[in-house]
């Protein structure tokens, strides 16, 4: 509660943008990359709340991304009616942005692992910090993407676990992980040697700190994903058994 007043100060202005879809491409089964004609400023780690009209009672949170350092993009996994609307509509998308805190890494010696649903963010971070992009997917990726963007792809749970153990013994200072909660937890628990950052997925109603709906338990008590995150240090979310070397 101490930082309640600090939080209030942190608030910046949010704007609702109308975005025209440029390209909608399938990344993998049920998951799409959408690029837009328009652009606005944001920083790595930030997200937006997409209005889905009558297809949902809340705006829907999506991590912002950028391709080739210029094209605004999001990636969307069809999870229900709202995401289906986002992928399929021919209308402009009404998007509230930029929300949440930027992710500012302590060095450029990191790597980013994303699920296909967070590929736009992955590409953005990789290009922006000039770090390796790794995609962990349950299903094979569309060949096009693998070629167009520099990335390593790991398909299936076993491959993912091997990857984590490889990275745990790598020279990277930090690893950024964005995907499902399970995937993020596995990353944190299986890379105890590393500083792992995770982008959390709590259910959001407002996205701007008003509703207090997106609470998560951290080792420092309740935090809110939309105003304290969405990116957290993994060891703030899950207890990590540090190995004594």
């Amino acid at each position, binding site marked *: 509660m101490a930082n309640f*007043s600090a939080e209030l100060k942190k608030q910046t202005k949010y704007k609702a943008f109308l975005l025209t879809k440029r390209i909608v491409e399938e990344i993998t089964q049920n998951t799409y990359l959408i690029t837009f004609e328009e652009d606005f400023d944001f920083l790595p780690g930030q997200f937006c709340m997409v209005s889905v009209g009558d297809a949902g009672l809340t705006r829907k949170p999506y991590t912002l991304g950028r391709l080739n350092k210029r094209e605004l993009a999001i990636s969307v996994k069809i999870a229900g009616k709202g995401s289906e609307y986002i992928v399929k509509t021919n209308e402009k998308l*009404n998007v509230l942005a930029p929300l949440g805190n930027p992710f500012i890494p302590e060095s450029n010696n990191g790597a980013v692992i994303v699920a296909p649903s967070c590929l736009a963010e992955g590409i953005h971070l990789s290009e922006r910090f000039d770090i390796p992009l790794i995609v962990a997917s349950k299903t094979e990726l569309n060949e096009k993407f693998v070629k167009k963007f520099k990335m390593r792809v790991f398909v299936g749970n076993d491959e993912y676990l091997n990857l984590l153990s490889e990275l745990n013994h790598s020279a990277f200072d930090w690893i950024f992980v964005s995907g499902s909660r399970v995937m993020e937890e596995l990353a944190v628990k299986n890379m105890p040697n590393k500083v792992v950052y995770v982008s959390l997925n709590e*259910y959001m*109603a*407002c996205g701007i700190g*008003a509703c207090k709906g997106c609470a998560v338990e951290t080792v420092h008590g309740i935090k809110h994903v939309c105003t304290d995150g969405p990116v957290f240090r993994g060891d703030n979310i899950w207890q990590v058994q540090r190995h004594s070397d």
Partner: protein
Amino acid sequence: MASSKTLRLRTPIVIASGPGGFGEYLNVDSIDWSYVGAYTLKTITLHPKVGNKPPRIYATDIFMINRIGLENPGFVGLKKILDSGELDVLLSKVPAILSLGGDSFEEYVEITRLVKPYLDKFLAIEYNFSCPNVHHGGLSIMSDREEWRKLLKAIRKETDAFIIAKLGIESGFVEEMAKIVALEGWNGVTVINTIRGLIINSEGQVLLGGLSGPALYPIALRAVYEVRKVLPDIFIIASGGIYTAQQAKEMLQFGANAVSIGSALFQNEYVINKIGKEIVEFLKSEEKQ
């Protein structure tokens, strides 16, 4: 007993306590605040509350369920924001209503006493007697009707502010509750609050919380109608599932003095402008006649 205060809102549209937080929507560009008569702040309790454990919210097509648990910085937090002038940005753009809650008789009375020095900043105080998401207070303060009546009396004695009781529909027939409120000299009621619901989210977690959104609308409209029928003079704020100007108009026509926009903010906060514009025009055209 009743204070002679009246409540004149520049428009009959208010932001609901909770969904609007502590003014965060002022950071969203393009909302025209001249359409809003009052911004009701998130309920403040005497002591700070960290709120419930996550998950706290889940929505379907027709309703949402939240179990925030009145997370709020308590009176100390409120005092800090008020003393520091932080809230002045909000207050310069839109009048505000203070929402107060508590876990016991004593807490309600105590916070009423403590906020006194700040009352010139607010149009009114709304007392949340019906939050379904806290264990003490909220629901249970109304389970014992005699106790609750005493509390109404005690608060009325403590303040001459314009005081509004926010009522749910589960502690007794809402019009009977409202009659008690009026009898104790209060100025208004907000009807209704969320109704207790249960939902299982996509992760299989059980959420016991309050139901808001579209499914609430016909129930809230009926409550407004019933309360107005028995209390011709009380100030009524309608709350529950208002998403369109048409619904706002119906609420006004069935007796509400103002309508509250809550969950609809989450679908698209632009709803304020949409409803605001149409309602302001509607009232102008009514006036002409």
